[in-house]
């Protein structure tokens, strides 16, 4: 039987890189889709608004695992066979988009309504209003919850191990199956996750404090 030593630990550390890459890619794609949905959710056209609201509600009300399976098998049924990494990124991006859309909708709505009126009275188009007046303020407000959500995302990347992609959790499982030293293996895995997530949690809380300080003036 193999024992848990340096080679195994290095294998886990390398897998942590994949977790980070998965997080980065799904966040990048998810934020594009999520941003679009946030704006659609606030559209003046009722149909668009309801569609976005429905999308957000559905994705937030089903497990991430189901989002993963649905996009994995759904894509293969229409004939697209993606390698596990892309399937995983795509489905995580769907999950990310729904949560970010909701967070960002809240941030956009919390910009005072007078800002819209002021911008309109300067003859800005809706696009210009977003670009020059609303978004610069909304982005500041959205920073703490967005970073907080990033922590959730890092943790939820662990679920994609089920489609066979070797990221941090899957690496831990593989090493555990070979060594049966669950405590050491999963402690190391947990420590790595903690080392990624804890600074982000702290940053989120710090940003929240900074924002509150600036708002109370």
């Amino acid at each position, binding site marked *: 039987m193999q024992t848990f030593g340096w080679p195994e630990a290095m294998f886990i550390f390398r897998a942590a890189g994949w977790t980070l890459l998965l997080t980065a890619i799904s966040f990048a794609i998810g934020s594009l889709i999520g941003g679009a949905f946030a704006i659609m959710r606030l559209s003046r056209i009722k149909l668009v608004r309801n569609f976005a609201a429905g999308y957000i509600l559905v994705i937030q009300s*089903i*497990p*991430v*695992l189901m989002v993963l399976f649905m996009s994995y098998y759904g894509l293969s049924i229409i004939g697209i066979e993606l390698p596990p990494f892309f399937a995983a990124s795509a489905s995580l991006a769907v999950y990310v988009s729904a949560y970010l859309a909701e967070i960002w909708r809240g941030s956009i709505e919390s910009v005072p309504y007078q800002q819209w009126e002021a911008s309109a009275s300067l003859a800005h188009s809706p696009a210009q209003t977003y670009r020059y007046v609303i978004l610069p303020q909304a982005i500041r407000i959205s920073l703490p919850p967005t970073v907080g959500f990033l922590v959730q995302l890092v943790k939820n990347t662990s679920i994609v191990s089920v489609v066979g992609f070797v990221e941090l959790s899957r690496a831990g499982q593989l090493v555990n199956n070979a060594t049966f030293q669950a405590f050491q293996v999963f*402690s190391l895995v947990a420590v790595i996750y903690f080392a990624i997530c804890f600074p982000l*949690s702290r940053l989120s809380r710090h940003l929240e404090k900074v924002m509150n300080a600036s708002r109370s003036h």
Partner: protein
Amino acid sequence: MQFDPVLAESDLILKGIWLTIVLSASAIVLGCTLAVLLVALRTLAGRWAGIVVDAYVELMRNTPFLIQLFMIFFGLPLLGIRMSGVEAALLTMTLNLGAYSTEIIRAGVESIHKSQFEAGVSLAMTRRQVFQYVVLQPAFARVWPALSSQFVLMMLASSICSFISVQELSGAAAIVEQRTFRSFETYIIVTVVYLVMALSLKVFLLWLGRKLFPQVSGLSRLDAKAEAA
């Protein structure tokens, strides 16, 4: 797409639904109890108790549920504590939800004005009595919406327990899929079931919040608004 082979296995899916409900309900009750105890410890006991509680909360909040599950399911037997998949799932869910709820309820307790504590103490109540009878209920009422969404998230996260072959809804789905080879159909049905369960739980928790905290919370204000309209 053929749904018939999947629907033929509806027994298995119904059993899965039942286990998901039982696991989630137990975890919510136990996790909440744990959270109240931890918040009490943090508020009433000394500084060290607070540090220990905070460390526990941070540890649980910054590691994935899956790894916590593996740690308990594969790790504890090495210490001689053997448990079935369902027991490990329930324990993990309780510990996980307990940590999140501790953080939420703590925020609620801290939002209660200091004068409430002082008023209680000036009526010759002990600090524990003040916490129990004066602070806890309004604190709960204030954070009930946040707590509710955490409960729903926990119900959804229970799907991860299928990783250690617990046959809750997702676990049942995996078996149905293997028997019927109808992956997409199986997961469409199961996803819809999860959707219905999550929405029902949301509605139930909203109703429960209004029942439990009629006068204090923003929930009753929503009611008043609805009546006025």
